[in-house]
């Protein structure tokens, strides 16, 4: 399991725009590099990131080799109701990881 850090405010007012920051440890090997022996290092990246808010998708990103190692993504959403945010990263070599965060909306 890769280490993931998620920053979601624990509490928010209804209708408030909240900032969500996510970071996951991953090499994001581009597939363009070669070893000293001239062998191409196969691509190994996270290519999809999805965030759902109580089951409804609120943000989706397609990542390419140009995303730095340990992909860091910041985005926003409107706090509509208390519940769970689910974050899923998936990519090459059947990589898939899901994390959740809870939010209380007053």
């Amino acid at each position, binding site marked *: 399991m890769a280490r993931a850090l998620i920053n979601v405010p624990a509490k928010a007012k209804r209708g408030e*725009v*909240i900032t969500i920051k996510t970071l996951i440890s991953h090499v994001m090997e*581009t597939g*363009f*590099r*070669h*070893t*000293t022996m*001239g*062998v*191409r*290092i196969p691509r190994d990246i996270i290519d999809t990131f999805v965030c759902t*808010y109580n089951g*409804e*998708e*609120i*943000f*989706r*990103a*397609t*990542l*390419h*080799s*140009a*995303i*730095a*190692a340990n*992909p*860091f*993504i*910041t*985005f*926003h*959403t*409107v706090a*509509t109701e208390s519940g769970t945010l689910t974050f899923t990263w998936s990519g090459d070599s059947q990589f898939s990881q899901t994390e959740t965060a809870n939010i209380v909306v007053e």
Partner: protein
Amino acid sequence: MSKREHATTRRQVLAGAGALAGGLSLPTLATPAHAQVQANPAALAIAIQKVVGGAKINDGKVKLEVPPLSENGNAVALTVTVESPMTAKDHVKSIHVFAEKNLQPNVISAKLGPRAGLPMVQTRIRLADTQDLIAIAELSDGTFWRATGNVIITLGACLEDG
């Protein structure tokens, strides 16, 4: 059986070495790491075409923030902001970023919706060389808006072999 496997491996190694010498299957290897990275306008145009289709791209509404100079192309902070009220009728549908001199022009494509509240995406990207970046946003009315930015890179990503 094990002997045969061994022979196959050796053949593969020799074939690989031959291709290496000829520079046929590994053309990028022939490029020294310090060589100037060439912009590939055709690949960039195709990548943008895939996103916008035949639609006209207008300048404005999008703001692309990158540092003017970065010592290391392996992690360059990137922020894209779009002017939009983010209502159900008028919102940003997607944000796409392209780099003109990277081996693959696509950087990131983010899908947003009216629930985003603030149409802004931040990430860290790799850049092979000093180059222009292009951010394109698609609005809910089907129009496309563009912003460009330039970053000077002292040490590029991708090309140094590991």
